């Protein structure tokens, strides 16, 4: 929040907001509360020459949903206890064994990069994946906001909350890649006011090669040349 008594209307704070929620009204900076995702960047940026930005220590439910999904310094205390978007995904797969051979992990991060989205629209984007009959990852804070995890229906009181991004996470069998890309295209057409970034997670083959990438390329989808690679140095070993 901005202390209007202190604000001198210099506008130096405007560029720091990732979602462009700060504007100048009557020579005073003002936050558009609907657009704001409570990421805390404006407060931490220390750009304000008169320190007019204050951060409420606690936010009431459901407003707190914005903060835990947008501010990496706010833990998902009520669910996984994780930071950031709150899921460990493949970072510790060498010890957790969350992704096994013969499965593909999919993470659809709605709102990323830098656009944001409401939970109401996350629900629309998740619907085509629910129709595939997948199980949404239980150790992911977004899943805990669902009222019906089979149909990806979210709790009514959180639907108007806007977050910087949230991850829809599930597993699918390699034989269903065709269905997966159709669902992604369907979700993409529904994402008229936002974007989403898609991750493809693979446990490596015994010979060290990466499965499923060629199959995706045959379907016309190119994967990034850069990747996140778990080196398998963690203990205890999930495979042991």
């Amino acid at each position, binding site marked *: 929040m901005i202390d209007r008594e202190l604000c001198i209307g210099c506008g130096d704070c405007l*560029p*720091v*907001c*990732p979602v462009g929620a700060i504007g100048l009204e009557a020579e005073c900076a003002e936050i558009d509360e609907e657009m704001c995702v409570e*990421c805390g*960047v404006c407060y*931490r*940026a220390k750009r304000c020459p008169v320190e007019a930005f204050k951060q409420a220590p606690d936010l009431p439910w459901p407003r707190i949903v914005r903060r835990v999904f947008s501010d*990496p*310094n706010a833990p998902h205390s009520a669910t996984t*206890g994780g*930071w*950031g*978007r709150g*899921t*460990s*995904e*493949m*970072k510790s797969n*060498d*010890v*957790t064994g969350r*992704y096994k051979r013969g499965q593909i*992990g999919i*993470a659809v991060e709605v709102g*990323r*990069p*830098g656009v944001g989205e409401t939970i109401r629209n996350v629900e629309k*984007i998740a619907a085509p994946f629910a129709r595939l009959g997948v199980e949404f990852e239980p150790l992911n804070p977004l899943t805990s906001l669902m009222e019906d995890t089979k149909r990806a229906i979210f709790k009514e009181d959180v639907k108007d909350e806007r977050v*910087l*991004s949230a991850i829809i996470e599930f597993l699918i069998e390699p034989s269903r890649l065709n269905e997966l890309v159709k669902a992604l295209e369907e979700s*993409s057409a529904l*994402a008229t006011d*936002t*974007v989403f*970034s*898609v*991750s*493809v*997670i*693979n*446990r*490596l083959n015994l010979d*060290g090669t*990466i499965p499923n990438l060629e199959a995706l390329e045959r379907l016309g*989808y*190119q994967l*990034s*040349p*850069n*990747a*996140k*690679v*778990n*080196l*398998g*140095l*963690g*203990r*205890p070993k999930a495979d042991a």
Partner: protein
Amino acid sequence: MTHSLHRAGTIEDLGCDYVIIMRAEKGYNQEGSAGICKELLRLFEKHGAVNITGARGPNYKGNILETTLESIEKEFKDGNSPYCVFDTKEKLESFLREMKERDYGLSVVVSGLYDTIKSVCDRVGITPHTTNHSLGVWGNISLLPDGPVLEITTMCGHGQVSRYLVDDLVEKVKAGKMSLEEAGKELGKPCLCGLFNPKRAEMLLHKLTGKEKAERVNTGVRGWVV
């Protein structure tokens, strides 16, 4: 947290960008891990990381572009993950050699060009376990910023680096109010996880502030026109 993936760029641009995430997992190997993690922060420094952090909580002041390594170390607790960025594959290799030797038992994740990571692993004697690739950006991609701006903002996977801040600092550099190096560091301050690469940002800012407009490159990955 997929915050080190989806860093948009050409193969050439991504060649100077390797993120390290060390992970102690709750219920497996997290208890008592803070001591090892603090040691790791010093190893990151020893091997020449260009950004370092990992602590969290109300007293956390930010990455090394914002505060000191001592301050980060002080706030480090069990459950926090040490992070850093290397700007060369040589630094990555020397770090991984030491990791293999020390055998801490924490999960080590490297983000960067896969072929480079694989060849470094082959030389060091490490067999990768799991990969996570980006399938690009879907939806209304007309909402994305142009070229190098997208490359800069995607270096913070939690979206804390504003595209408008990039525009603002480009204007400051053009006006001679700030150097490219200062602007690169300034852009990395909001990235709490310290995954932002200020050296790469400096190179991208050079493209943005140059007299000649940089040619747009379609990388082939959906939404990655840089």
